[in-house]
C-alpha cells in the first residue's frame, strides 16, 4: 500500500512575525460545512444542544466550534460532524478546502484594517464574532478569537496570496512604529 504524505495549506509559507504581529497556520482540523434543509433548522440546532450560531456569531460545541459561514450555514471546526446530522442538513467535509491562519499581536487589528472593510472595533466585532468578508481582493471568513487574535480562513489554493497580502500589510504597519 502506498503512503501518501499530507501537506498543509500553508506549509513553507508560515509562520512569520513582523513588528510584533505573528501570522501562523492553525493546525489542520476537521472542518465540516453544515447547512440545514428546509424546515430542519430547529432540529439541527437541537442536535447541537441549541447552540446553532446566529449570523455573525460562533458557538462552542463539544470538541469544537461552529462558525457561522454565510446564509443558513455554519462550519463545524475541530470535531467530526455526527452522522445523524445528515437527516437535518447537508453535511459536507471541507477539511482540505481551506487555509486557516491566525493573525495575532497588538498591531493585528491595524493589519486587518489595511485589508478588510469590516468594522472591527471592539464595539462592532467582539471576541467570538465572525464574518464572511473581503480581505484585500479575496473572500474570507474572519473570526475574532481573542482580544488581539483573529482567525482568517481563505481558499486553500489562494494561501500564497493570503500570506502575501497579509505580509505586505504587516510590513506597512510595522514600518509606522519605527
Amino acid at each position, binding site marked *: 500500500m502506498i503512503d*501518501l504524505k*499530507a501537506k498543509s495549506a500553508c506549509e513553507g509559507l508560515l509562520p512569520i512575525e513582523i513588528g510584533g504581529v505573528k501570522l501562523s497556520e492553525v493546525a489542520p482540523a476537521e472542518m465540516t460545512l453544515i*447547512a440545514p434543509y428546509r424546515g430542519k433548522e430547529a432540529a439541527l440546532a437541537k442536535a447541537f444542544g441549541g447552540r446553532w450560531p446566529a449570523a455573525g456569531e460562533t458557538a462552542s460545541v463539544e470538541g469544537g466550534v461552529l462558525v457561522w459561514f454565510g446564509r443558513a450555514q455554519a462550519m463545524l471546526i475541530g470535531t467530526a460532524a455526527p452522522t445523524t446530522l445528515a437527516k437535518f442538513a447537508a453535511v459536507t467535509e471541507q477539511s482540505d478546502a481551506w487555509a486557516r491562519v491566525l493573525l495575532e499581536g497588538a498591531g493585528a487589528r491595524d493589519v486587518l484594517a*489595511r485589508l478588510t472593510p469590516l468594522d472591527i472595533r471592539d464595539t462592532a466585532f467582539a471576541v467570538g464574532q465572525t464574518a464572511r468578508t473581503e480581505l484585500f481582493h*479575496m473572500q474570507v471568513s474572519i473570526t475574532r478569537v481573542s482580544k488581539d487574535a483573529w482567525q482568517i480562513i481563505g481558499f486553500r489554493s489562494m494561501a500564497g496570496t493570503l500570506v502575501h497580502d497579509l505580509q505586505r500589510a504587516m510590513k506597512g504597519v510595522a514600518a509606522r512604529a*519605527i
Partner: protein
Amino acid sequence: MRIAGKGLINRKKPVSFTFDGTVYSGFEGDTLASALLANGVKLMARSFKYHRPRGVLTAGSEEPNALVTIGNGASQDPNVRATVQEIYEGLEARSQNRWPSLAHDVMAVNDLGAPFLGAGFYYKTFMWPKAFWEKLYEPVIRRAAGLGALSGAAVTDKYERAYAHCDVLVIGAGPTGLMAALTAAEAGVDVILAEEDSVLGGRLLSESGEIDGVPARDWAEATVARLQGMANVRIMTRTSVTGAYDGGTYGALERVGHHGVVAADLPKECFWRIAAKRAVLAAGALERPVAFQNNDRPGIMLASAVRSYVNRWNVAPGKAVAVFGNNDSAHDTAADLLAAGVHVSALIDSRPDATTDLPVPFYAGAHVCGSEGRKALEAVSISRASGIDKVQADCLAMSGGWNPTLHLTCHMSGRPDWDEAIAAFVPRAGMVPGMIAAGACNGVFSTAACLGEGAGAALAALDGLGVEAEMPALPAAEARDYRISPLWAVPGKGRAWLDFQNDVSVKDVKQAAVENFRSVEHMKRYTTQGMATDQGKNSNVGALAVLADATGRGIPETGTTTYRPPFQPVAIAAMAAGSEDKGFAPERLTTSHELTVKAGAPMIEAGLWYRPSYFPRSGETTWRQSCDREVMHVRQAVGVADVSTLGKIDIKGPDAGALLDFLYTNMFSTLKVGRVRYGLMLREDGHVMDDGTTARLAEDHFVMTTTTAAAGQVMSHMELITQGVKRKLDVRFTSVTEHWAQFAVAGPKSRELLNGLLDAPIDGESWPFMACGDVSVGGVKARLFRISFSGEQAYELAVPSRYGEALFAELRKRAEGLGGGVYGMEALNVLRIEKGFITHGEIDGRMTAFDIGMQGMMSKKKDFYGKGAAARPGLLDDERPQLVGLKPVGVVKQITAGAHLYKDGAEAVRENDQGYVTSVGFSPEMGSFLGLAFLKGGRARHGETVRMVDAMRGVETTCEVCHPVFLDPEGERARD
C-alpha cells in the same frame, strides 16, 4: 527673514535642505514655504502658461503657485505644494516648468506674447492644417506649458490603503472641529478627528487672539491633549478628507512618508476609506485674493498667510509690508505685523467708512491697482479718489474676504446658497446625508461662533446616533462681526489674475462672456479657470463674480461649477495601493503547482488558476515537441493531468435531482447512483452557459463539475435559481473545488496504473464508462470517476487536497514507468479537439445548443432554465453559425484560431464572412492541424472547401469542412 517670537518652530532643531541645489537651513516645524521665506527666497515657481515668476500665495493646502518637485528618479513627486511639504534633513526640492533655471526661464517669452495667448487662443489658432494638431502643435504647446512631470519610471515607493470606522467623523481640527470632537468624545462615542495639517488647531495656530484668557494656540494644545487622552478618539493628522460618498463613506489621504527619510516599508501615502455614522464638517474657510493688475508678483500673498508666517513660523515675509483688504482681516494682519516688529508701509481698505487706530499710513476707500518688480515685489500702486500713490513694499498682504470650504458638502451634487451678508457661498443643510457643516465652512467666522457651532454640530450628530448629551460650557473667545464689502476685481488695464495656477485673468473671463460662453461651466472650460490641480480653490468664486458682472447677472443666478472629489490631489498609486505586481489578482495554485514548476512547465492562467502548458523533457526544443509527445502518451500509454481547477459543486438534499433537472437541459433525476452524466446548462436567454459532468454519489447527493473559469458563475447561477426561481426546492449546495485534488489518468494503460495504486483493484465490469464511486488510495478515502475528456479509457481520481502533491508525484512516477507521463493544457487541448469536445472557446456566451449540435440534449419531457428562450425561431435558424471541424487540404497546412472563413474563391472582406475558427491543435496521430470552427449552416456543408484567412497573422489556408469529431467517432476507446 526669521523674527523673534514664540511660533511653532523648534529653534533648537535646525534642519538643512536644498532647493534647486542650494543648501538652506530651517527649523523643525517649518514647511518648505516658510523655510524658504525665512531664507529670503521669494521666487519659488514659474506659472503654467506664461512662465511668470511666482512666489507663495497661501500658507495652506490650497496653494496654487509654489509647486515643487520632491525627490528623484522613480520616486520623483511633482506638483508638491511647498506650503504643505514639511522640511526634513536632506530634503531635496526642485522648481519646475522652467529652463534653464528658475531665475532665467527662456519660456518667459510667452509672457511677452500674452496679448495673443488669451482664452480660446489655441482653439482659434491651431485649427489648420488639421493633421498638425496632434503631430506638431499639441506637443509644442504641452512642452511650453505645464507643471511638474512624472519620472516615467514605475513607482517603487510603497503606498497603502486602509479602512476606518467611527460614529462621528470630524473633518478639520480648528476651533470648530476641536470643539465638535471634544463634545462628541465626551458623550462616549467613537470619534475620528481628521486634520490635513501636521498640527491640530487650524487658524488658532496662526492667530494672535485668546480663548478663555489664554493664547488661542495654548487652548488648542490643551484641548488636543484632552482628546489624546481619550480612548474613543482617534486623531489622524496629515490626513485630508478628499471625498464624501454614499452611505457615510469618506475618502481620506494621509501623508505618511512625505516628511522624512523613511524606512523601506513605510508607505508614502495611505488612502483611507472611513465609514462614519455621522460627520461634522469643520473645514474652515479659504481667504480669497483680489484681482488687480499684476497681482501675482512674488511677495504678494494672502493676509491670512502673512499672519501664519509671522505668528506660526516667525517669518517676516518682507521688510516693508503693505496690507490691502475689504474686511477686518487686513487690520488684524497689520496689527500682527506691527506687534512682530515688521514695518507696515501702508494699510489700504477698500471700504470708504473704515477706520484704524494703528500707527500706519492708512488709505480708506482705496484700492491697490498695480504692482512693480519682476522677480519680487518692489512697490504697489494705490488708487484713491485723489489719484494714484506709489508705496514701497516687498510684500503685499491681501484679503478679498473668505470662502467657506464647503467642497465636501457638494460631493453628492448639491449646490450651495449665496449669502449676500458675507458675500460667499454657504452650504445648505443635508446636502450630504449624515454630514453637518459647522463653523467657518458654514459661513460663521468669529471664533466664539465657531466654538458654538462645533459643539452644536456634535450634539446634532449625537442626537442622530440616539445619544443624549448637553451643550458644554463654551470657552470665551473673540466674537467680532464679519464686515465685508465685496471686491472681486479692481478696475484697470493690464492683466489681473484670478486663477494663478492656470494663468487665467479677468480679461480671459470677460472674453469668454463676449464670445457667449456665458454659462459658468462653459466659461470654466473655455478659459481653463479652475481646471488646474488646485481645482480653482482660490479663484472659482472670484471668476464667477467677474462672469456675473460681465453678463449682467447676479452671482446666485450665475451659480457655481461642480465641486468634485478629490478635495486634494491624490496619487493614483495611493488609490491603487497593493494592486501592483503580485497584488494585481489572487493566484490560485493547485497542489501539484510546486512540482509542476520544478519540472520546468511554463504556467498559463485559467481564470485565477495557474495550469501547466506542457512539461518539457531534455532534447525537446519547442513546445510542439513536448505537446506531441504528451498527446501520444495518452493515446498509446497513459497520461496524468491535474484537473483540480475544474469547479466542483456538492449538491445535497431531497430535491437535488429536481434542481439538476431544472439547471441542465437534459435529465438527471433518472441517473443511477454510481453513474456520471454529461450535462449542458443554459442562461435565461437560451444560450449555453456551461457544460460538464455530474456524478450521483447517493440518492440525494450529486457532485457537479464546471469549467475552470466558470465555477463562480455557475455557483451564482445556482444561487439565483434556488433563491429566486425555484425557491421551494429543498436542496443545499457548496463548492468543494478546494477540498479535492483531482487528477485525470487517461490512456490505454490507465487502469493498469490505477490498479497498482488503489487499495482494491478495479475492472471494466465494476467500473464501466461513466461509473463513479468511492475508492481507497493508501488508506485515504478517495473518489474515482470514469470519465474521459481525451476519448481514451480514462479516470479522474480525487483525494483530499492535503494528499494532492503526494498523489501527483506518485501518479507521475507510475505513468512514466508505463511509458507515459504528465501532460499539460496544450496536449489536453489537442486531445479534446481530436474528439470534437467543446470548451469555452466554443461556448463563448453567444452559442446555443443548436449551434453546437446538441439540440438533442434539450429535453422535451421537462422544463429547464432557458428552454423557452432557446426555442425562439432566430436561435434555431439554419443559417446560424454551426460547429464544424476543419482540415487543411491545400498547400498551406496551418490553421489558426481566430481566423475567419470565406467561401472558396470569395474575397476576404467583412461582407463575405462565413464564420471563424475557435480552436486549433496539431494532431500527431493524424499528422495534421485540426480546427473547430463555427460556419454558417455548417452542419449541411461537410465536405465543402472554404477559405481560411487570418488577416492578423497573414495566414491563408484552404480547408475542408468536416464533422467536428475527428477521432474514434463511435467512442469505442473510452468504453472498452
